[in-house]
């Protein structure tokens, strides 16, 4: 029998041998009984995004001026973490993202479930916000007819939002 391998995390003999094949690359990890729990190596999704990033234009990744307006995330942060800062990053880093997504997934367009109710609620909320801005504007410009009409619309929009 071969000599017992050493744990990849400490010096104890390894008793657990994990193998993972991702994109035809074999990753092997030998660990003792106590370590895998702490190390989190058994996460099947924890593979590096670096492979995918290679396909994105280098100039975009190193573009220092590119930053997500909503959360301040930069391409360098993405390179480091393999994750985004906020939902808006998907817009901000659109160009870096496309080639990556087409390598990772079946297609780059979502064809699955849609959160219908949440989307409807959000669009009603947006409409209400817009109406409130319009009202403010009409009050400022002393346009009383418009203000009255907008107040009715706002009341309607509020009810619509509350009943969904």
């Amino acid at each position, binding site marked *: 029998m071969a000599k017992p391998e050493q744990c990849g995390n400490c010096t104890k003999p390894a008793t657990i*041998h994990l193998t993972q094949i991702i994109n035809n690359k074999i990753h092997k990890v030998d660990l003792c009984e106590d370590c895998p729990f702490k190390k*989190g190596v058994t*996460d099947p999704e924890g593979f590096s995004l670096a492979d995918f990033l290679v396909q994105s234009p280098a100039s975009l990744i190193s573009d220092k001026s590119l930053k997500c307006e909503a959360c301040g995330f930069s391409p360098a942060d993405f390179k480091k973490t393999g994750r985004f800062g906020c939902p808006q990053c998907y817009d901000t880093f659109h160009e870096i993202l496309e080639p990556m997504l087409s390598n990772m997934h079946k297609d780059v367009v979502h064809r699955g479930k849609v959160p219908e109710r949440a989307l409807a609620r959000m669009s009603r909320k947006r409409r209400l916000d817009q109406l409130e801005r319009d009202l403010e504007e009409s009050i400022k410009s002393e346009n009383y007819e418009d203000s009255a009409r907008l107040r009715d619309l706002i009341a309607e929009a509020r009810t619509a939002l509350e009943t969904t």
Partner: protein
Amino acid sequence: MLITPLIEAKAELTDGGLAPEPIVLSTRIRLARNLSGEAFPGWGDSSQRVDILERCLDKLSRLPAFKDGTFLQISDLTELEKQVLVERHLVSRELIESEDATGVFIAPSQQLAVMINEEDHLRLQCMRSGFNFRKAWEEADATDSEMEDQLDYAFSDEYGYLTACPTNVGTGLRASAMLHLPGLVMCQHMEKVVRMVNQLGLAVRGSLGEGSEATGSIFQISNQQTLGESEDQIIKRLITILHAIIEQETNARGVLLENQSTMLMDKIGRAYGILRNGHLLSSQEAVNLLSLMRLAVDLGIFPEEKRAHIDRLSMEIQPGHVQCSANADIEPELRDQIRATRIREQFASFPTLDFSRIQISPNLNQED
């Protein structure tokens, strides 16, 4: 301990509410979801995370699915409790590694759980014993729709559900099955199967067990792609490939029975002997031996109704569970002793093996 009620409660996954099956141990659906306009947990600061946790908790507790459920904040748990939750697949390792406003909401059935502030704001998972994607997806889908009713999800028409990592974007769906494949491991066909499965866009997790014993022969197979296909298509594709693997495993077992039945019976007989009489068992060894006993059930050598007992034991002999039952943080050597005692006690009440179903192969010595 905070999690004692969870451990003691009867649950399908731990008590075989449904009759456990050969080959497919369990099925799981996971959905990654995030709240609109909020930094993802890995990027948000502490106050943002606390705010997300409170909001999600408030909304989730109103859902019928989580009525009488248990919420556990990770920072309230001991290391041992965290380990037990991981061993039960109720939380991920990533979740317990961060104590900053992270938690899990577990439904009373323990088949449904939502992690809050893991990699994504919300990670809903639905687990079933056996090969049961339809039920698991139905429940996950329904709960997701209830959650969506209360919370505004980050969603784009183009990319679908927006997730912290682009590997999950789109459906946010990870469907997976735990498979018991001792036949393929013993025939040394597993590496080939893993490559085939991988080329079809699925991920395999588990040991290939080159050192013949070090494995338990348990593999998790899941989809890797989440964007560009509907949930149904993803699940259907996975099911098709799983059926192919099940067929391969069945064939491998047939080949072993035909050509190497003595070796097979010897392995199972020895496993039974050690489980029944051993006094020191590491978790790895115990998992391997119990894996052979599960195979014995599948082959008709051991009674069918013992499959659920074996599955339950396989969970309870993990390091966290052993320490938890002993009510102490104990050294591995003592753990091995407690583990062996526990298994011995169980096996004392089990029937003996019945090898009469297997015929000894005539060409036994041809290979050497």
